[in-house]
């Protein structure tokens, strides 16, 4: 299976729609511990991505992603928006000059996103962030695909790992970002970023 720019655009488009549908939940979760801007950040990011999908007329997946990353940063430079833009720009570098990507490359995408977010956000697993869903997702996706060479199955396993990871953030104490400043009081709710991550992969796995 080979993925073209149009496939990449489709994946981003459906993910943007999922993010938009979660706006209120994300705002609510983020208000519990952060500054409550996660819903609006994802809304702005989703709109920026959708606009870039319409605007970009070339064929280079890397160039498209780099431009998308810059657009997200311009539209939503808050914490999650910046992390998202860094991750997309990093993927832009990875796929620079490519008009297609393979399944093998695709299953490595979450791991590249993990590295970009860890580097920029200086967070680790267990800090109560999106990484608590994204790292298990990335690991499960690669391990499953390496074992069965079946993307559908790998996506399902990745979605399940992400959901478990997101659930586990409930009960954790935040160690980075604004939520860190409230310490113990951050324990009662799951992390909004992790919940978002699990929802996005769940949607992709259902579509196959």
């Amino acid at each position, binding site marked *: 299976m080979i993925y073209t720019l149009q496939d990449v655009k489709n994946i981003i488009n459906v993910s943007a729609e999922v993010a938009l549908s979660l706006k209120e939940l994300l705002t609510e979760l983020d208000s519990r511990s952060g*500054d*409550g*801007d996660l819903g609006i950040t994802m809304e702005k990011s989703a709109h920026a991505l959708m606009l870039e999908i319409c605007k970009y007329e070339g064929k280079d997946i890397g160039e498209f992603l780099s431009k998308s990353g*810059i657009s997200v*940063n*311009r539209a939503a*430079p*808050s*914490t999650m*928006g*910046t*992390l998202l833009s*860094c991750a997309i720009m990093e993927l832009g570098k990875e796929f620079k000059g490519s008009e297609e990507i393979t399944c093998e490359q695709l299953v490595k995408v979450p791991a590249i996103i993990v590295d970009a977010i860890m580097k*920029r*956000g200086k967070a680790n697993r267990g800090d109560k962030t999106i990484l608590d869903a994204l790292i298990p997702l990335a690991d499960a996706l690669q391990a499953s695909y390496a074992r069965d060479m079946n993307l559908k199955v790998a996506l399902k396993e990745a979605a399940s790992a992400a959901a478990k990871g997101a659930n586990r953030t409930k009960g954790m104490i935040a160690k*980075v*970002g*604004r939520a*860190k*400043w*409230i310490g113990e*009081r951050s324990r009662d709710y799951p992390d909004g970023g992790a919940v978002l991550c699990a929802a996005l992969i769940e949607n992709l796995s259902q579509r196959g």
Partner: protein
Amino acid sequence: MKKILNHADNFVEDSLKGILLAYPELLAAHPEDIKAVHRAGAPIQEKVAIVTGGGYGHIPVFLGYVGKGLCDGVAVGNVFTSPGCETILNVTRQVNANKGVLYLFGNYMGDCMNFEMAAEIAEMEGIKTETVKVSDDIASAPRESWKERRGIAGIFFAYKIAGACAERLAALEEVKAIAEKTIENTATFGVALSSCWLPGSEKKIFEIGEDDMEIGMGIHGEPGVKRGRLTSSCEITEILLPSILEDLSIKEGQRVAILVNGLGATSQEELFILYKDINEALAARGIKPVRVFVGEYATSLEMVGASISILKLDDELLELLDAPAYTPFVNVGGVRGA
């Protein structure tokens, strides 16, 4: 909440336009990016440029500190949101005089990441940058991890002292070192009495009872350390001041600079009542407030409340604190005396 505006979506842009139209001889913006604002004369030759930035809604922080003896440029974000990396780069390129650029801003994650990205790109363009983050709010982390604190009103001292140092054409490393020294010797603690409203939002950013105050609340409504009944100015002083003095290990005989800052909707009259009590409390402990600033230095829209910042002084810091500085919003230092 009643606000004077045209449309909430244009809050930042309209406000910025007003500032630029009011002070064309002092401030200018990037031709394609109104959120990238700099001293009208930038770049200033031979001088290290200081670039700051952060969310809008805290005036005079951050934009109000762009001017002679303070910062060279500012990247303005949306209300309570970091500026984007592109805006930071637009300012950086505008103010760079090839003597290096110091990024000086409050320690918030969005700002940290966007300035970091900008620094990486600036470096690729051959612009040398250094970064100093202001972290003075003692409610957000203990002294041993003071670098993790969020930055609030104490940023005034960092701007003032680093700005004076840069104005004397000191090297980038020197400006960075004095900024770090200032922040290490600065501590702030405050109380919030009522919330502010984001433009276009029906809800306050936090709820607080009519008769309550929250100790240590952040300037974006981040939860503080304790909520209690609103007491007297004397009692507020006795809650805030001892913690700051202890945090900075201030002993009898120490010279300090004091900043009593209003959060946006507390009257200056009240701030001076608070200062009277601070002054008396300091006198009782034998601590000398040799420089005093009372007014609005870092606000949070129309939040009601105040913070106290203390800078532990030595000769070097005092001398730089006294140097002249002038912007449309802040006019301190220079000639002293009646």
